[in-house]
């Protein structure tokens, strides 16, 4: 089976007054049809910029894709014209963002935001579009859809708005949905509802999902595969069970160790990741995680480790000591 999305050696830079920031610095990964892949990382790791690059939504200037390919269903999105790209966005690729209030148009009714997409992408007439809009709202679990279609975004709750965003994303029967922190702004019980809805719909409609999040629990519950990002690069990648059960990068290990967990007995004290997040302007030729790493050795200061196979099939780590650290993951 060939991949639906094949990101190859993607580089995205921002030129700022203070220098060049390599927000995405040589990232490669694939997403199969119908698969859910999580991109995990903290602020500034490049996870959102990477996703925005796929959608070609990086403001230029200051941002630019400087290198790499984004093959989607066999076509390289990097080479597409703005017009062609507009057909892909909202057409074959749906989008769900963190803050539904800012990504829905406040002066258009809910119905209009859905029918506009249908008219633009499908050339549907008004009546057909209206029928489809009602259908979509029922699909995402909104009761009384006819009435909701006439309402404006501000009249709905945050959870309701995120359901609308999902309906808009599904409008043109996409093959892929990119969801950037889709539930971060929502309450715990609503977050659970929205995630269950997305999981159920992507499974039923065979839509692939790239979910960008910082929440390790969400990843564990919903993703088949995980890509961990740090300072613009993938540092670990693999099936969720392997990455969580047998982490092979010190950053992943440290993250998993540092979070308080409801499923484990209370610890006397948390074991945090040491140090501060990296300054992307001041990266040297070594591993970016080195200053915070408990496993760092001399070679880590002089060259940056590539993402290479570690452990089971499909599991990759960008650490020189990926095989050694597996032996004593918690001891250090």
């Amino acid at each position: 089976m060939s991949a639906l999305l094949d990101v190859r050696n993607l580089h995205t830079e921002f030129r700022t007054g203070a220098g060049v920031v390599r927000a995405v610095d040589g990232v490669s990964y694939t997403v199969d049809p119908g698969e859910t892949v999580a991109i995990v990382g903290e602020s500034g790791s490049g996870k959102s910029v990477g996703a925005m690059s796929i959608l070609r939504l990086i403001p230029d200037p200051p941002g630019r894709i400087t290198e790499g390919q984004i093959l989607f269903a066999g076509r390289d999105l990097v080479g597409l014209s703005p017009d062609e790209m507009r057909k892909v966005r909202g057409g074959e690729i749906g989008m769900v963002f963190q803050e539904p209030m800012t990504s829905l148009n406040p002066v258009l009714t809910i119905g209009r935001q859905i029918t506009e997409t249908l008219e633009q992408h499908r050339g549907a007439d008004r009546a057909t579009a209206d029928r489809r809009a009602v259908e979509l709202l029922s699909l995402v679990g909104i009761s009384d859809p006819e009435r909701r279609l006439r309402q404006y975004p501000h009249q709905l709750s945050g959870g309701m708005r995120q359901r609308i965003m999902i309906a808009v994303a599904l409008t043109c029967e996409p093959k892929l949905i990119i969801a950037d922190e889709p539930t971060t702004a929502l309450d715990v019980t609503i977050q659970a509802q929205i995630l269950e809805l997305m999981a159920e719909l992507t499974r039923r409609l065979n839509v692939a999902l790239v979910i960008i999040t910082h929440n390790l629990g969400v990843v564990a519950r919903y993703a088949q595969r995980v890509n961990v990002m740090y300072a613009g690069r993938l540092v670990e990648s693999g099936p969720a069970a392997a990455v969580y059960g047998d982490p092979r990068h010190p950053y992943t290990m440290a993250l998993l160790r540092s979070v308080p967990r409801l499923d484990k007995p209370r610890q006397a004290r948390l074991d945090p990741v040491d140090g501060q997040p990296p300054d992307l302007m001041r990266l040297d030729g070594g591993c970016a995680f080195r200053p915070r790493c408990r496993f760092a050795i001399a070679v880590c200061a002089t060259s940056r480790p590539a993402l290479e196979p570690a452990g089971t099939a499909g599991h990759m780590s960008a650490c020189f000591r990926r095989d050694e650290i597996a032996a004593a993951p918690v001891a250090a």
Partner: protein
Amino acid sequence: MTGAAVAARPLLEVRGLHMHFPISEGVLLRRQIGEVKAIDGVDFSVQRGETLGLVGESGCGKTTTGRCILQLEKPTAGSIFYDGVDINTLSRPEMLALRRRIQVIFQDPYSSLNPRMKVGDIIGEPIKVHGLVPDAGKRIARVRELLSVCGLDPSFADRYPHEMSGGQRQRVGIARALALEPEFIVCDEAVSALDVSIQAQVINLLEDLRERFGLTYLFIAHDLSVVRHLCQRVAVMYLGRVVELADCDELFDNPMHPYTRALLAAVPVPDPAIEAGRAFQPVRGEVPSPINPPSGCVFHPRCTMAVESCRQARPELRELRPGHWVACSQVN
């Protein structure tokens, strides 16, 4: 309420607290058309040296409760006793003295620090205002000491907030709260905005400070795993009311209120193996409007256990096990 069970006088006691915000309409002839019942009858107490967690989703009234304790809101009914004294009866000078003893740490270190002030001035200002250290030179020394207590290099005193990372800024917020040597600190989502790798560092710092200075915390948060790690007792709020209150371990090991159970079930744990085996049904519906809360038990529209009587009578907190209080008529 808990007074009978505990011999020592609580440091803080909240009795029958109500905070109803008026909603008015009209420009010239403003008239009140309703009210938001942000807090609708809340009782709890906090012992000296203890950390009480206040959890719940947006709009449950947890932040407003904190604001009433900080005297940033004047409650519409009920009273708050601090160290045995009703704070409503205090004169202005007494109030000023009390404000020194109660401090706050806010969620967002980006918006709660003045961007035009140097870190040293941010921390030094309350010391100056309250006349604690009138001598400027000694004040600088005190600021440097506070920075180092909070794990920052004293040279940070000369920096501006924008020159620091989110975690460092939150440490400045904590140093400012400590500047007046308070006894009681309201931590309002104090670690929620921080990246995962930094969150554990700040949680450990808060615990160290509690021990070192004998502090008492009211820890307001929505993240249940963090609350479980940090608190001795936990109160769960829903729509302006406390629905469950118990010792931390008791609450998490043996949650009794249907809402607490739903909240706990909604939190995914960072382990795909556990998540794969977990049957999970998100709680239905959304939090109703506090303008027009449901009759009887405010949770009944979303509750799987609700019976007819739940629509009629408001359940009061009952002590079902020693120290474990539940506001639900259907559990025993």
